[in-house]
Every structure is written in C-alpha cells, then in structure tokens.
C-alpha cells in the first residue's frame, strides 16, 4: 500500500500533493489488487481541490457509494473510472446526492455549488480517471448539422427519449427522462457516461462533433412552433386523443344524466 502506484507530479505544494496521492493511492489499492497503475491522471488542477472533493464525498456520497467510491452491490454503483463528466452530470442535474435509492433518480434542484461539484469531480477523477467535463464551447449547438443530429437522434436516442425528447417509460419503474431542461453540457455528459440505464455512446462511436449535432437537434426542437392544439409535453397524439376522449366522455355522461333526470313537477 504505497503511493508508488500513482504517477508523481514534480511541482505544486509538496505536502498537499503527498496527502492527495496517499488518499488516492490508498483508496485505489484498497479496491483493486494491484493491477495496472495508470489510473488517477489528475487533469483537474490542484490537489487541494481533490482533498476538498474527498471531504464532500465523505459527507454526501460515501454512505451509499462506500468510503472509497467502490459502490455497494444492489444499492449504488462503483464510481472508479466513471470520470468527472459523470459526477458533473449527476450532481448538476440534482440527481445526486440522492435522498434514497429509487428505480430512477429524478431531476431535482442542485444541492452543491459549482465549485463543490468541480472539487467532487476532481476527487472522483483521481480515483480512476474517466471522461472529463466538456467545455461549453465544445458542445455549443450553433453552427452544428441539425439534419445529421436528427438522423442520429432518431437512430439511437428517440426509442427511449421520444422523437421530440419528451422522455418515456422503461421497465420496472425506470424511465428515460425528458430532455427539455438538460443543458448542452449535461446532454454531452450523459451520452459520454451513460447514466443509470442509459447506454454509453463513447467518443469513438459517436464523435464529439456528432454529439454536438445531436445536441443541436435537441435544442432546436424546443423552439419548434406548435401547429395548433395543446402540446401536452409533445408526447404525441395518443395523449391528446386520450384527453379529448376522457373529456368528451365526461361531457356525454353529464348530458345523459341531464336528459334522463326525473322531472321535478308532480302530476295528478
């Protein structure tokens, strides 16, 4: 159990570096039996940030994900190697820290500050690398190829998220969430990391440029005009038909009650 399993960095505050490396090395070594030692590439600057992230992790996450992010079978997944992108997605959408394990973690108000999220991401990244957080410029939808984005979205996303990004049901209480509130960065991170039941679309299968095209399509659909009628979350004609059906059914029942109601007047 020595820090030699972690690549050293020559500069920066020596004590802090050592502290961070010891923490990272210990946690990594604790859950793997040696193995290859190329993990924990600290792309996010600063060991102080990692230490801060570790503190947040112990307070907010460790009760489910384990003291070293190794996960608890059946409750919370292993976080080694999920990367900063996964942390940023889960925490910036308010899904994590979760109150309790559920079939599907709902989008909620964000619990941590931006700085805390970055620190937590840095800590998780120090555990085993993984995809990093994309810059806003890298995912900006402006100038992207909407047409290709739509084709890719239709081929690989629409089956769960609906062709307008309205979301849909999966098995055993899980669901694909609507994409109406997701930021471009969050959509990119979700494709890259595959949160919860979502498949992973890595950058060598769907390139970053193609991901941008998909994001552009998703963002574009939000501003599509509605050609008449209520949108009802744009989940398609079934819901609209159901609403009309139920509404008219109620109306017809009330009308039938009125037509057949007894007269109030009395004869004879």
């Amino acid at each position: 159990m020595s820090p030699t399993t972690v690549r050293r960095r020559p500069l920066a505050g020596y004590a802090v570096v050592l502290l961070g490396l010891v923490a990272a090395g210990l946690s990594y070594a604790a859950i793997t039996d040696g193995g290859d030692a190329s993990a924990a590439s600290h792309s996010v600057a600063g060991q102080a940030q990692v230490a801060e992230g570790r503190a947040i992790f112990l307070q907010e996450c460790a009760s489910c994900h384990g003291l070293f992010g190794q996960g608890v079978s059946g409750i919370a997944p292993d976080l080694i190697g999920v990367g900063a992108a996964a942390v940023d997605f889960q925490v910036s959408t308010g899904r994590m820290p979760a109150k309790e394990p559920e079939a599907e973690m709902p989008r909620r108000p964000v619990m941590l500050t931006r700085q805390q999220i970055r620190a937590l991401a840095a800590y998780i990244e120090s555990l085993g690398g993984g995809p990093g957080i994309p810059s806003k410029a890298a995912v900006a939808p402006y100038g992207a190829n909407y047409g290709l984005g739509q084709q890719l979205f239709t081929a690989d996303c629409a089956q769960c998220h609906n062709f307008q990004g309205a979301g849909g049901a999966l098995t055993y209480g899980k669901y694909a969430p609507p994409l109406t509130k997701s930021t471009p960065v969050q959509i990119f991170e979700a494709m890259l990391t595959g949160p919860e039941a979502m498949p992973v679309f890595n950058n060598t299968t769907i390139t970053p440029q193609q991901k941008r095209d998909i994001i552009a399509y998703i963002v574009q659909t939000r501003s599509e005009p509605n050609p008449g009628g209520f949108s009802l979350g744009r989940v398609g004609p079934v819901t609209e038909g159901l609403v009309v059906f139920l509404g008219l059914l109620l109306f017809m029942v009330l009308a039938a009650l009125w037509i057949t109601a007894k007269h109030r007047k009395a004869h004879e």
Partner: protein
Amino acid sequence: MSDSTAGQRPGDYDEAHGGPDEVPAESAAAGPDSGRHRVIGTPPPARAHSLLGDAGGQPPARPRELPSDPDDLPGARRAERIVVACFLIAMLAGLGFLASYFIFNVHTVSNVLYSNLALGSTLGLAFLAMAVGAVIWVRRLMPDVELTEARKPLRSAPEDRAAFAETFAEGADASQFVKRPMLRRTLIAATVPVAVAPIVLLRDLGPLPGTKLDHTVWRKGLKLLNYGANTPIRPGDFSSPGGMITVVPDGYQDNFDALAKAAVIIIKFAPGQVDYTSEDHPVPGKVVRNWSVDNIVAYSKICTHVGCPAALYEQTTHHILCPCHQSTFDATRGAKVIFGPATRPLPQLPMTVDAQGYLVARSDFTEPVGPSFWERGPST
C-alpha cells in the same frame, strides 16, 4: 291479413298500429277538417284525441291517457321561449354554415384552417342548439306519463302458416322446377362459376411472399454501418461496456424496404457478462460466441412479436424493451424473452471482423427476423 287473426282480440292490433283501413278513413276525414289548426304530420283535429290511432274508425271507447296541457303553465311558457330561442340559434348557425361555405375560399393552407373552423363550429352549434331545444321540449313541455302498449306475438297465426306452405308448394309445382331436372341442374351450374369468382379474385391481393420473409439483405462480408453517420465500426472504437448503437448493412442505409427487416443493434458488454455457447448455432438462452466479436453482440432490432423496433436497451439490467407491447429480452442470454407477448428471442446476427478490422456480417440471420409466421421453420 289482420282480419284472419283468430284467438286474438282485434283491439290488440288496432290500438297499437291503427290498422290498414285507417288511411282511407283519415284522408276522407281530412277533407272538411283541414282548417286552421292542422299541423303537418298529425292526425286531423277531429281525430286528434290520441296519437296512437283509434279503434278502427269506431267512436273512442276509452278515457284519454295523456294530459292535454302541462301542469305548470307559466313554466311551460318559459320553456317554450327557451326552446324557440334554441331553434332560432340553430337556424342562424345553419345559415352561418351555408354563409361560411361561400365566404371562406380554400386556396391556401391558412384559409383552409379558417374555413374548417367556421364550418365546424357553425354546424356543431346548429346540431347542439337543436338537440338542447329538443331535450328541453321533451322534459318541460311533454307529459311524463308511463304507458303500456300491447304487443302482437311474433309468431304468425296457424292459418297464415298453413296458407304459406300451401302457396309455396303450389308455386314450386307450377314453376316446373321439380318436374324438369335439366332446367334445375343447368341453373345451379350457371351460378357456380359466378360464386367461385370472388374467391379467384383474392389472387389480386398480391403474389405469395415465397421465401422473402426468411431472408434479409445481410450477407457475408457486408460492413455494419453506424446508422445516421453511416460510418463503419471497429471493435476498438465501440469499446465502452454499456454501449449500444443502431447499425445498418453497408449500401442499404437509404433503402427503407431493406432496413425494415435488416435493422440491427449492437451492444458492447463487459467481459464475463455474457452467457456464451461456443457452438456455431443458437442455443436458447445463450449467445453464440463465434458470432460475437470482443463481447460485442448484434441482435435484430425488429421485435419478434409484431415487428416494432425493439431498441430500448438498459445497460444496467441488459434488458432490451420493445415499446409497443413491453416485450422484454435479456441481451446477455441470447435475447431470451423474459417478459411480454413475444414468443421467441431476437435473432442474433453472426458477426466477425474483416481484413481492415471493421465489423462485418458472417452471413445473413440464420432464422427469419420479425413476427413469426406459420412456415417459419424449426428454429426456436
């Protein structure tokens, strides 16, 4: 005929139906009486004591059953005004419908919208106002009295039945149908081809599918393209466990007829997740190892229930869900059905890599994809 009903009180018919001799009686009576208060469709005032007709021209022998006036006369007057207003509204709306038909031209899309709106709302209002008026009329002005009407038995009288049988036998005899068998047989022979013709015309529903349902366009060496981007795939690029994408055969990415059967999803698993059989043919509940590459498995995207695209893949549970009827397949166990109405697994596409390292098909599917059909063959 009604005169021949023996054992039946004559009044039973006549009270309910008026009787056949009523028409000349009415038209004779209508002459002198068709004065001021005659309303179209009602009996002349002299005979208007009952809308149910009278006893075959005899003087009325029973007390009236329906009151002539509503109990609440002021209320009835109010109701009358409401009904009149409803009918006037209906009339105006009907006129509005006619007017809208001519006012709105339908040469542009937006004009069609306005035209539809105007036509629909005026016609709807006309029907609604008429219905509301009619219901108020019935509820507030017409009497609320329950009457019992006697009903004639459906079975004909024995004399009628005997007469019919006699007539029928007489007719059959007189027509020579029985006596002249050549006539009878040639008539039957004449109708047979005409009766068979509609069955023969079913042929125009199209040629039989033949073996088309057994095959897709996949064949040995055809590259798997990432659908949408239409780029070939190397196993090293599709390398993240939990990954899934839709792929199509190279050269057929724009051929929707072909894709209707040939669409495929490929799924990347972590080592040890997949339940393999090393044999070169499918075993229920197992993935064929030789057909997969580096823990990448390819399944038909066409649900085996009724052919919806089944591609709702959950990387945590490895379920492939079909959104139409919730058929659920376990991707780690050869797409075995674990829930829902599908009765057989999604067929696995045999895959390998070509000389350049791209994923290619080893062959076509070894069983038909999509919904099952009778002649599908022995595979499970």
